[in-house]
């Protein structure tokens, strides 16, 4: 600014302060204005304040967050385990593996149940996506994706299509067909396009919309027919690793968890973040809504699972134990919400009593880390997929008070 030469002594009203002064030409965003010398000086020093404003913004954000925490704490009058004291303790559980699905040649990364309660789609590191009838352990369909590490897969509500994606940054929808002449890969529809790997995907209430979460830090809602982006959700500061749709009456929200340790609840219509929770100490690997829709649980690399209530707007329970030192990779609730199943990276599955906060049972059986876990839609069993190339479907047999056997899995 200093070496700007005066071309002429123009006298007039300044564009900024409107006072009658000697004016200088000033270029602001390629537009020429005339400022008086005082305003010009102010504009020159504004650039210096850039860093200061950043710091002040940061401190303002911090203080607001502190106030928010205070507000949240004001209404917190009782802890969950105190309230749950009146509840009967659950008996000892014995959980047995009823089906072992072998057939993947590599690590199983993700799985989903079909609404008919017996079919499962699972995806693995070598790019294979297999649809099984887990009741008979038959494989019904198999697709090979052109990429490795298929980290997300989902079954459509009608049972007629599957969606999957991973390192190819896309989500592809394959309609399922039994016609032997047709190649399933030929009918593939590429729906979502992200700039980084796809970490999770899920159909909404119908086959025609799909919600995806990606390593580029965004979630997005897509129309399957046209591949059009309907809404995108920005706000995470790092990779988004998981998402879950709310089972609510109006069906408008979903929750996502990411590497920035935040779990955020979004409104699907406006794309805005409605609530955010930041109490985990490490990446959040999995989020799942409580069956009533008023709360959700999250599993994270800090070896804890936490329950967040949406109406009270805070974390209400932590499920952790000193002896559990590996991160939880996936969580799911039983149908009534009383049990929380969590698969961990130390090859085990821990079953927690949601209300009392205690661990009901620990299940062994996998030979490598448990990467995915889902309870079946009617709650009769749950399936866990692991890096040991297998999926196991397990359910519960009631133990009798006489012999106290722990879960064998």
């Amino acid at each position, binding site marked *: 600014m200093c070496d700007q030469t005066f071309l002429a002594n123009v006298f007039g009203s300044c564009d900024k302060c409107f006072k009658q002064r000697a004016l200088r030409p000033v270029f602001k965003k390629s537009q020429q204005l005339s400022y008086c010398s005082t305003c010009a000086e102010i504009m020159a020093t504004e650039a210096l304040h850039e860093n200061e*404003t*950043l710091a002040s913004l940061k401190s303002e954000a911090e203080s*607001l*967050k502190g106030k928010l925490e205070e*507000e949240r704490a004001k209404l917190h*009058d*009782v*802890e969950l385990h105190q309230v749950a004291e009146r*509840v009967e303790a659950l008996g000892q559980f014995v959980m047995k593996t009823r*089906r072992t699905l072998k057939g993947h040649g590599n690590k199983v990364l993700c799985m989903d149940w079909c609404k*008919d*309660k017996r*079919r499962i789609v699972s995806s693995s590191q070598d790019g294979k996506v297999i649809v099984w*009838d887990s*009741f008979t352990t038959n494989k019904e369909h198999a697709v090979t994706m052109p990429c490795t*590490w298929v980290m997300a897969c989902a079954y459509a509500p009608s*049972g007629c299509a599957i969606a999957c994606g991973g390192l190819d940054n896309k989500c592809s929808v394959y309609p399922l*067909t039994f016609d032997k002449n047709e190649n399933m890969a030929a009918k593939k529809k590429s729906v979502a396009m992200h700039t*980084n*790997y796809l*970490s999770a995907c899920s159909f909404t*209430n119908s086959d025609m919309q799909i919600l995806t979460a990606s390593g*580029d830090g965004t979630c997005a809602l897509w*129309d399957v*027919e*046209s591949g059009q982006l*309907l809404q995108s959700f920005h*706000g995470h*500061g*790092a*990779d988004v*690793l998981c998402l879950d749709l709310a*089972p609510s009456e*109006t*069906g408008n929200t979903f929750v996502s968890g990411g*590497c920035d340790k935040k779990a955020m609840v979004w409104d699907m219509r406006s794309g805005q973040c409605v*609530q955010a929770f930041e109490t985990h100490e490490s990446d959040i690997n999995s989020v799942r809504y409580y069956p*009533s829709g*008023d709360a959700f649980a999250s599993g994270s690399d800090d070896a804890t699972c936490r329950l967040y*209530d949406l109406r*009270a707007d*805070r974390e*209400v329970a932590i499920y952790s134990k000193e002896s559990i030192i590996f991160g939880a990779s996936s969580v799911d609730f039983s*149908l*009534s*919400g*009383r049990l929380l199943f969590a698969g961990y990276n*130390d090859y*085990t599955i821990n079953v927690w009593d949601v*209300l009392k906060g205690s661990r009901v049972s620990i299940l062994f059986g996998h030979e490598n880390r448990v990467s995915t876990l889902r*309870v079946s839609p*009617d*709650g009769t*069993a*749950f399936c866990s997929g692991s890096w*040991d190339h297998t999926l196991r*479907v397990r*359910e*519960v*047999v009631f133990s009798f008070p006489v012999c106290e056997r722990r879960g064998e899995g």
Partner: protein
Amino acid sequence: MERVVVSMQDPDQGVKMRSQRLLVTVIPHAVTGSDVVQWLTQKFCLSEEEARHLGAVLVQHGYIYPLRDPRSLVLRPDETPYRFQTPYFWTSTLWPAAELDYAIYLAKKNIRKQGTLVDYEKECYDRLHTKINHAWDLVLMQAREQLRAAKQRRKGDRLVIACQEQTYWLVNRPPPGVPSVLEQSPGRGSCAASRVHMTKRADFYKQEIEYCRRALGRTRVKSSVCLEAYLSFCSQRGPHDPLVSGCLPSNPWISDDDAYWVMNAPTVVAPTKLRVERWGFSFRELLEDPVGRAHFMDFLGKEFSGENLSFWEACEDLRYGAQAQVPTLVDAVYQQFLAPGAARWVNIDSRTMERTLEGLRQPHRYVLDDAQLHIYMLMKKDSYPRFLKSDMYKGLLAEAGIPLETKKRVFPFSRRPRHSSPSPALLPTPVEPTAAGGPGGGDGVA
């Protein structure tokens, strides 16, 4: 993990350590496998199986190494001696094991005792030889130097260092067939990189501030109220949860009999008692169940308000339908339900109607949301309670049966053939699968 290992090495409360005689040499600070397991059981109040599992995991990650059989990293809960790995070699120090170092290690092994390299190690050795051929002299020289320096140490120390190194390389370069414990999902590697992208710029903070301001204004509910809600939800749904209360006639996964699924198929003529009870829990449950919804529609028909439910269904189709069909669907809904003089005109209050009609000029997916919510609330607050009190519902509840439990098989080894059901992808409309279930499990009235 380090936390656990460090506390294990604590001289007072840690695992009992003693000197161990190994062949001829004496190794100090060794622990036995069984001691490790016992200590874990006590400290964390675990079952023995779990303590063994935790110990095995610690060994697999190289934090504890066996002295006697350093080929495989397994925890044997007996008198086998183990030692704690030095922090230098801990996996969390995270510097990647360099090829060069591995080459030096293999060369040392090769030189020390001819041919003690295992097959896969031999292969690696040859591969590395071709890869870093140019630096091979350096490798050999380093190996010889290290061996010479080691010879000057006491035999005990030499053994210990050898075991430590071996364990380190077993973890970092696992033999074929053993899964590497260091593997990570691909995404996490790029995590650090992506974090760099989203630097804390001004707009990030502005977003946070805006969010905080909005959040401060939100109404919150007292914790006690929310938590009580969970308790009542869990107790209400408990009997309906197969994993908590079991299911009748039998859990299909246990008995290999899919009668349970047949009886609870989406469109079945005679729903079970539990199912009919669920319709009374919340309006959403009723609508989500096709049988329930059908009965509700009949009920509304009797009250001449069936168009409400049809309107709601049409709005749902619009919300979740294909983008291309949005204009046609909106138009159809308008013609059928909202236009003055429409065949099935729905009763919405004037303000909502005005807003909706206004929005219809530029139809989008959510344009009917206000109207839909209004009708939904109308049904929920008015028609639904009446449905629950109606004779129709009470009749359904009385008719619905509780299935008999299947008798346990006398010969537990005779497996019932598992019948496959037709895939939903096959049929244009979902049809109740024809079940070939065994005896028992009929719709017997309890």
